[in-house]
């Protein structure tokens, strides 16, 4: 990779326009005039501290002052903020930091060595297409009708997608999952263990949706992944059967939806969405027999099982590093901790990446320190 000062930003005319010249720059930065002349002539590049000082003097950011050629491909990060909140610059910077760290750790991992995913050709995002894809996916992998997390974990493992368990809280900004696709093809998915159990399953299925339809982008990709997850976890046939019963249930319809959601390990919202599609299939758009959304969601809140995945796996409170690693490796079959341990050996104890580990996994600095010490001892 070649790095140069941008001649459009750093030249004699541009300096003059700011009331500067080479001597003034040299004086301000504490370097010789010859040194600045060499920078202007493209013969040399300032050291990091002088480069930053030059940026501040000229009032320009790195991307404006420096041009880079043959840059190494960077990881692609995808996530959706909870309740579709818009991503801001802070999210992007945080995710960049996640991706950079994961990329470093991934060099010490075997992840990505699984089977190659056969992507859907010309995928569409509509529910009917996504349901067909979900049915094919279920048959291809011989999955049961009622899917559990271990079924999906097996799929991730089979196709070399490595899962990273994280504690991102229930009001998290990065939502329930984040996917990092590295330039060499390996994909890592960070899963939020502080999600409710039914949401967790949905987000795993959602991530699979993204993986099998890479041809879709943006909101179409999100729509497909949502529809795929919905149809995979609550099959259209089940939705049709429940829909057919709705007229006879009348006032008991809301309760039936909530019970069905519990039975299938999904949220009532997932069942309600599937019922809406069932209604469309039955051509009853104009005369709905579905209970109002508000009534379903209110009932869902009343009977909600707020247990999180972390609570189910670890109980209340923070697990010990040993337990965290053990469950991550056994239940999520992750190679992340083994890769991190190998990376830590390379870094040495004087360079422990406490901040990066804490930030990525949602740990306190001291829990991150504890995890690092445990992994360093375990090797």
């Amino acid at each position, binding site marked *: 990779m070649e790095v140069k000062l941008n001649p459009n930003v750093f030249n004699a005319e541009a300096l003059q326009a700011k009331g500067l010249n080479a001597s003034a720059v040299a004086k301000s930065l504490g370097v010789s005039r010859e040194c600045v002349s060499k920078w202007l002539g493209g013969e040399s590049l300032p050291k990091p501290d002088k480069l930053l000082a030059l940026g501040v003097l000229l009032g320009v*950011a790195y991307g404006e002052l420096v041009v880079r050629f043959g840059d190494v491909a960077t990881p692609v990060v995808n996530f959706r903020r909870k309740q579709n909140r818009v991503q801001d610059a802070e999210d992007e910077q945080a995710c960049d930091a996640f991706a950079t760290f994961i990329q470093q750790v991934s060099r010490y991992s075997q992840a990505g060595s699984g089977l190659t995913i056969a992507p859907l050709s010309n995928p569409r995002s509509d529910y009917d297409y996504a349901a067909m894809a979900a049915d094919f996916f279920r048959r291809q992998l011989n999955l049961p009708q009622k899917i559990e997390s271990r079924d999906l974990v097996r799929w991730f493992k089979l196709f070399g997608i490595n899962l990273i368990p994280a504690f991102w809280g229930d009001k998290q900004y990065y939502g329930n999952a984040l996917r990092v696709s590295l330039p060499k093809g390996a994909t890592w998915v960070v899963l939020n263990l502080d999600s409710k159990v039914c949401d967790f399953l949905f987000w795993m299925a959602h991530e699979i949706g993204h993986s099998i339809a890479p041809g879709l982008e943006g909101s179409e990709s999100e729509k497909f992944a949502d529809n795929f997850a919905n149809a995979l976890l609550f099959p259209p046939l089940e939705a049709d059967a429940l829909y057919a019963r709705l007229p006879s249930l009348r006032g008991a319809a809301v309760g039936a939806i909530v019970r069905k959601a519990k039975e299938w390990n999904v949220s009532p919202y997932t069942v309600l969405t599937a019922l809406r599609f069932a209604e469309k299939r039955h051509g009853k758009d104009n005369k709905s027999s579905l209970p109002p959304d508000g009534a379903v969601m209110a009932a869902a809140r009343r009977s909600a099982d707020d247990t999180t995945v972390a609570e189910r796996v670890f109980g209340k409170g923070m697990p010990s590093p040993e337990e965290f690693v053990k469950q991550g490796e056994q239940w999520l079959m992750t190679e992340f901790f083994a890769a991190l341990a190998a990376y830590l050996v390379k870094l040495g104890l004087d*360079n422990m*990446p406490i901040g990066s580990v804490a930030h990525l996994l949602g740990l306190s600095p001291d829990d991150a320190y504890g995890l690092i010490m445990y992994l360093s001892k375990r090797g």
Partner: protein
Amino acid sequence: MAKKGLPTVILLDSCTYFRLGRSFRPMLTRLDGDPEYVLKVIAELDREFAKNPRLQTKFWWARGAEHAEERASNRYTPSGRKAKDADIAFSFISQHVKDEHIQLSLVDMRVLSAGYACKGIVVTDDKAMQSVADMFGIRWRNSLGLIQLMYERERATLDDIDGLIDYWREFDDMPTSMLNIKKWRSSL
């Protein structure tokens, strides 16, 4: 008589604040003397705290009104030219961190950028942060250095320091910085 300048800002990184904040009251304070210092944190520390439930569990005390108010009223928020300089510094630091495969979180990079913009001192025990600070000419101290300064300026008593060591004894793993503080304390 020469006009007295503004105090030098000392910015605590997240680890330093959470390790020391409970034991010294007030933590974010002015250190009288020559030169004069003022201890502050950046706004991103509170955002990080709000996003991280484990941080809230472990450092439950930091949720208390007393500490929250202390952070709110001693938050370093660059404005005007300094805000622009901090953003520029962030762009250079984050690119360097990426290029050199250095492990720094977003908040770490923000503290360094703010430290650069205000020509202040960053307090950190993180070796990676210290090396990046050296690379960009940002002044830094470790937590032991800060405690020694607070002790010299009579903002920390031996009782406070003993309380800090006791607090950290509750945890199984005592970070290196705490061991250094313990060693220094026993030499007094």
